[in-house]
């Protein structure tokens, strides 16, 4: 088989960026939760919040570390594998990414040291401040990278001079049509991802009857958060979809499996095998007209389909179609669990209903999987374009020897597989080890010169948790 540099470079980028996104989607939400708990501890002095913050800071640290090392790769991979692309869009994307480094990466790195290692070195308020800064840093980082990505989806504000993209209006570039939707959708996704990670681990403890008081607090809080955020996410996702319909109709047609150049009374497909050869769906099962209702808010609204563009301008339809269903399916699963939690809470069995707790434990990685599926919809759905309707992916790869790219691709696959195994092993180890005991927190509080009543409270909880 003839090796294709373009395909290998794309596979390598897809693989490395997929691996990377796992970690920030956890840390953005988890940093926010840790800051929230630490703030509650400062305000209420309830040591349970400190225990939550102190436990989750460890999974946060290793997840953050994984995000850092896999992220550095990406900042160089544009140049190594897509040199022509880097050259022609550098004036647009370069400054956006430089702003990400200036306003987010340095900020996170600068305060992370104090957040992780500075408990005894700075006052409690300054430590809380550092945690908040790290959390805000993760949001700012998400903002810039979403701006850059969204510009590639819905480009505007540029002019093309000698084949290179120059910026005519930075305001238009930054506030491009899809940016606000994608940013809101992604930030919510990160918060929900972390929420279900915390909920899943708490449910696991409750099932195992370990660290009960700690797990109850974590589960209760996260289920309230999920009850608000998960339905909100569905609403935001719906608006995001309408935005895609307006600006990237081909992507939307792939998401919904719509083939005719224009279709009225679009069904909502529950199952189908989109067939790119026959330009139709096999084994189609759908609810008539519901697609039109969702997309156009009328039963017979017309929607543009895949055949409106020539075959070479269409993405891989089955991949987009199924990724979209995985994301939406998991999203509804999360809404269902959040609503069920409310009902169980009313009945007083939130912490003891075994099937519910087991389902939550299974849902621990649901956020991460949804985020990955969602990004496949976004990125595969944009193909064959790198910058929508303007730059074709196949035309801007570095003219490297294919075997060299194959070599590094294999290297990435081997190393990242190993790393993921190690990451999961240590996550499991941290979870098995459980939260720091109240005795341990007491010792640390003395080191931190905490006020007397805060210490008294720890002593109380020490008895509650059955420690000596």
């Amino acid at each position, binding site marked *: 088989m003839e090796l294709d540099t373009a395909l290998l470079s794309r596979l390598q980028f897809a693989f490395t960026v997929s691996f990377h996104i796992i970690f920030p989607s956890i840390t953005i939400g988890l940093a926010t939760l840790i800051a929230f708990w630490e703030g509650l501890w400062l305000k209420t002095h309830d040591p349970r919040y400190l225990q939550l913050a102190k436990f989750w800071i460890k999974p946060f640290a290793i997840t953050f570390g*994984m995000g850092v090392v896999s992220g550095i790769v990406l900042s160089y991979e*544009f140049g190594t594998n897509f040199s022509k692309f880097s*050259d022609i869009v550098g004036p647009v994307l370069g400054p956006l990414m430089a702003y990400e480094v200036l*306003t987010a990466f340095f*900020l996170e790195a600068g305060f992370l040291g104090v*957040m992780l290692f500075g408990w005894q*070195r700075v006052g409690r308020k300054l430590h809380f401040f550092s945690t908040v800064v790290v959390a805000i840093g993760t949001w700012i980082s998400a903002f810039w990278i979403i701006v850059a990505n969204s510009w590639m989806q819905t480009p505007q504000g540029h002019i093309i001079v000698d084949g290179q993209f*120059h910026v005519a209006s930075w305001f238009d570039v930054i506030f491009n049509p899809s940016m606000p939707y994608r940013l809101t959708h992604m930030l919510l996704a990160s918060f929900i991802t972390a929420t279900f990670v915390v909920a899943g681990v708490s449910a696991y403890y409750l099932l195992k009857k370990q660290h009960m008081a700690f797990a109850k607090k974590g589960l209760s809080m996260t289920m309230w958060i999920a009850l608000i955020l998960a339905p909100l996410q569905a609403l935001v996702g719906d608006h995001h979809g309408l935005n895609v319909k307006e600006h990237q109709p081909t992507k939307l047609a792939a998401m919904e499996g719509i083939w005719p150049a224009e279709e009225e009374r679009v069904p909502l497909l529950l199952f189908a095998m989109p067939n790119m050869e026959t330009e139709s769906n096999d084994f189609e099962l759908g609810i008539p007209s519901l697609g039109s209702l969702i997309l156009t808010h009328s039963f017979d609204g017309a929607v543009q389909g895949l055949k409106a563009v020539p075959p070479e301008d269409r993405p891989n339809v089955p991949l987009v179609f199924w990724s979209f269903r995985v994301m939406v399916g998991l999203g509804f699963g999360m809404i269902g669990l959040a609503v069920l939690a409310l009902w169980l809470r009313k009945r007083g069995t939130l912490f003891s209903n075994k099937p519910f707790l087991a389902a939550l434990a299974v849902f621990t990685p649901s956020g991460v999987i949804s985020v990955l599926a969602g990004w496949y919809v976004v990125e595969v759905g944009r193909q064959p374009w790198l910058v929508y309707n303007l730059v074709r992916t196949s035309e801007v790869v570095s003219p*490297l020897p294919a075997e060299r790219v194959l070599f590094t691709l294999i290297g990435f696959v081997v190393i990242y597989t190993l790393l993921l195994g190690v990451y999961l092993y240590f996550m499991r180890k941290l979870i098995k080890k459980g939260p720091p005991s109240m005795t341990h927190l007491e010792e640390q509080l003395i080191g931190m010169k905490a006020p007397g009543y805060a210490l008294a409270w720890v002593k109380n909880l020490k008895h509650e948790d059955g420690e000596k």
Partner: protein
Amino acid sequence: MDLALFYFLILGFAVLMYVLLDGFDLGVGILYPWFDQEGERDHLMRSISHVWDGNETWLVFGGVVLFAAFPAAYAGILSTFYLPIILMLFALIFRGVAFEYRFKAHRSRPYWDFAFSAGSATAAFCQGLILGSIVQGVNASHIQLDSWYWLSPFAILTGFSVMAGYALLGASYLYMKSRGRIQQHAGYLAKRLILVVMLAMLLVSLWTVLSSEDIRERWFDGMNFLYLSPLPLLTILFAVLAWQGLGDTAHEIRPFWYAAGIFALGFVGLVVSLFPYLMPNQLTIWDAAAPDSSLTFLLVGIVIFIPLILAYTLWGYRVFAGKVEDYQEGY
């Protein structure tokens, strides 16, 4: 001042910050094999675990400044040095995760020690390789992406030179941050490394001057050498002062700063040789510069945020000032 020149300075600043900051923490990793007692290795890693992330951010910053301000150079350099760059990234991954996992590991600790030291050494070597091949330049008028010329004898020499330089920074950092046996041993190593680094700088300078006519003219044409003579003279002076500082624990901070000074001077010498090229005889800063609309937009951010970054980075270092032994338990 023209914008391309300003960004060339910013890029130089970013690279210098990177080699000084990540230089010392990569150096600590390179020195791992010379500190083989369990407690010593804990100490070495704890001395840098709160700063390595920030230090490495300068590498990302250098990369994106190149991307934003000189997109043609970013595209050309990164694709030309494809393999050494990817190898460097692999190495940085291994040493980066070692920080997180080593302390939490028991049985697998020797593997993380290896990942940390081999990763640090490989990353440093690759950076030297890339640097050497950039200095050496590409002869052809077009970039040949299938060539192996980055693995030339000269590039291998610069690879080892950068490793030695980082190790010197690491040793003098440990000398400043430690007590007792570790401090003594770091001082002993630092003295040996001063000799190695001086020899490496001499060899690299001679080789460059002898092999490139342009660089020879830059340094020796007319009165040039007289103007430029402070660079080698100060380098020798700093080396001597660092050596003296290493014999006297009353001034235990000085050797680190002199070592940093040696690095800075070497870097200035490099800029003198290459300016105004980003890729010698191929791409000047003006050829590669992005349009003004991009450069002015980023300028605002650089002017506002770089001073802030320097301020809170310095604060972060001050929070953890003093000897490693004095730190409390981690997170």
